[in-house]
């Protein structure tokens, strides 16, 4: 499953853009310009690797809140991200109704999720069931943090998919922490992939800081799902380089030394070094990319800042289906 040079460079570009957008979100929060941010910094490689293994726009994606890089790969734009952070009317996920990073993008088959974790997994299984019933040539990718795999719902959903051999790929983004709690407080097994053995599906652990390794693992699982051989559980191992969200201070539960050590395994750095070693990325090329990312971030912030808030009466609808958008 070889990826061409342009594809690999594009992967890096997506990771870079996600990183710069994410960093700006933190700044906007510290400036008091947005209410909330939940970050995907450190998880970009796995998200981009998984996205590139899909037929983007056709296959269904049921993501979780750290998947900014995944969403960008699917066609979510920097402007849309900023609109969501600021709760603006044009925010395509919800028009300012849902929290930021709780993605929903019908045009590319992305289903929104709820704040209680693991609730998206049964939904993804339901989508896969529909695909199978309709005999469509599609698969579902659903992602989740490792902490959420302790939820009963997660087991019920994965079990279902295994029993019915549904076309779904479960990707666990194991970033080492559920808010403050390290993996060993969440599970007695080494990682989430081991949880597959009792459920009757293949569990694969992969280095989540390596976009190409994740791509290979997801591509193989997608192919398996498409050919009717059922679901796979992929655990991509990485490290959450930021606090859980803008509401916590990670200095209270992990050392700076630990975080600094993890930064040396930054997935962005790894991809960059790989491309440089191949001779596919020059210093000038990188500079151009950085400049373009900066311009896109600036444009997105400006655009979203100027965009209108929802009108007061928009708070009242659409509660039921007859109340289609009036604005």
């Amino acid at each position: 499953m070889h990826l061409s040079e342009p594809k690999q460079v594009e992967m890096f570009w997506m990771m870079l853009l996600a990183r710069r957008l994410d960093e700006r979100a933190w700044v906007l929060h510290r400036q008091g310009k947005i209410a909330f941010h939940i970050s995907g910094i450190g998880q970009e490689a796995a998200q981009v690797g998984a996205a590139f293994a899909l037929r983007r726009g056709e296959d269904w994606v049921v993501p979780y809140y750290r998947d900014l890089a995944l969403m960008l790969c699917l066609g979510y734009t920097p402007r849309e991200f900023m609109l969501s952070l600021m709760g603006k009317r044009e925010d395509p996920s919800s028009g300012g109704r849902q929290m930021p990073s709780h993605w929903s993008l019908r045009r590319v088959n992305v289903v929104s999720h709820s704040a209680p974790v693991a609730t998206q997994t049964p939904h993804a299984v339901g989508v896969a069931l529909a695909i199978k019933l309709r005999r469509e040539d599609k698969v579902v990718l659903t992602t989740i943090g490792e902490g959420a795999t302790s939820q009963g719902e997660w087991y019920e959903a994965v079990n279902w998919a295994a029993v019915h051999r549904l076309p779904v790929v479960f990707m666990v983004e194991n970033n080492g922490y559920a808010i403050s709690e390290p993996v060993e407080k969440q599970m007695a097994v080494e990682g989430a992939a081991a949880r597959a053995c009792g459920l009757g599906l293949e569990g694969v652990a992969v280095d989540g800081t390596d976009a190409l390794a994740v791509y290979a693992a997801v591509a193989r699982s997608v192919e398996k799902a498409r050919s009717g051989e059922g679901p796979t559980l992929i655990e991509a191992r990485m490290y959450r380089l930021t606090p859980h969200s803008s509401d916590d201070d990670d200095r209270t539960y992990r050392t700076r030394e630990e975080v600094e050590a993890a930064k040396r395994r930054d997935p962005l750095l790894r991809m960059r070094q790989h491309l440089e070693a191949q001779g596919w990325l020059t210093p000038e090329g990188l500079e151009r990319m950085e400049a373009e990312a900066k311009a896109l971030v600036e444009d997105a912030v400006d655009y979203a800042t100027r965009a209108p808030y929802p009108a007061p009466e928009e708070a009242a609808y659409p509660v039921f289906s007859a109340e289609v958008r009036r604005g």
Partner: protein
Amino acid sequence: MARLTMREAISQALWEEMERDPKVFIMGEEVGVWGGTYAVTRGFYDHFGPERVRDTPISEAAIVGAAIGAALVGLRPVAEIMTINFAFVAMDHIVNQAAKLHYMFGGQMVLPLVIRTVGGGGRQLGATHSQTPDAVFAHFPGLKVVAPGTPADAKGLLKAAIRCDDPVLFIEHATLYQLRGEVPEGDYTVPIGRSKVQREGRDVTIVTYSKMLDISLKAAEELAREDIEVEVVDLRTLRPLDMEPVLESVKKTNRAVVVEEGWKSYGVGAEVAARIYEEAFDYLDAPVKRVAQVEVPLPYNRTLEQLALPQVKDVVQAVKEVL
């Protein structure tokens, strides 16, 4: 009397009860090393140790289920559900198990369990993170539901809940942790199932609780400037519901407004209004008015969120409408 925040008062109650009774222990997501999502148990882990301040996996059903098991054999767990919105994934354990086991076993076993959780909107946390579904839980016989509105009541009620042999759902409000108030010195409890007049007045009775107590007291201040004297009755406990102070007040003022943060349909206001009609109909000079949240999932955008939540001006207007 010391002036404490709600957070300090709740934290003190837990601390004192853990010092007093070794059977009391805490468990939940993030309660230990991190000190709780709302920093209520900060410092507990170091003082009481990881056995009695237990960080759990993200498994709300298991948190409540395991707490039920521990309570059935004589411990006094205080299980924390990070927000009441997450209690829905533990719903079976709360309403089918905790609320019913004592009855279904013919009273052979008691269930000294406290489920501490956080409800309410106003922090821009979106529809599945900001609900006030208190009435849903208060619907079930067998479960005591407590929702304090002042630091003094929070401390006394939480201590009473921990010492109580029944399961208690203790609902704190997400925006009240910084609220300050006088708290009595020393060990005291506030009885569960007793409403309280928090402000006296002759013209209209406001019945409320939790965050809406604060809103209602502010409305009462505003109305007092127009010479309208409002009496504010704080329910403090939703089940068992103590209507005596409410009915006494209504018999005096002959008018009532019920203020709740949750939705109006099938809500606390509906219950209270129905009981007023049943037991004090002849005393009323106007229909009971309800103030509640607009019936939508709560939006993230700050303006929309505030529009959907009951505000001081809504309470002021409702009071004027029953006059």
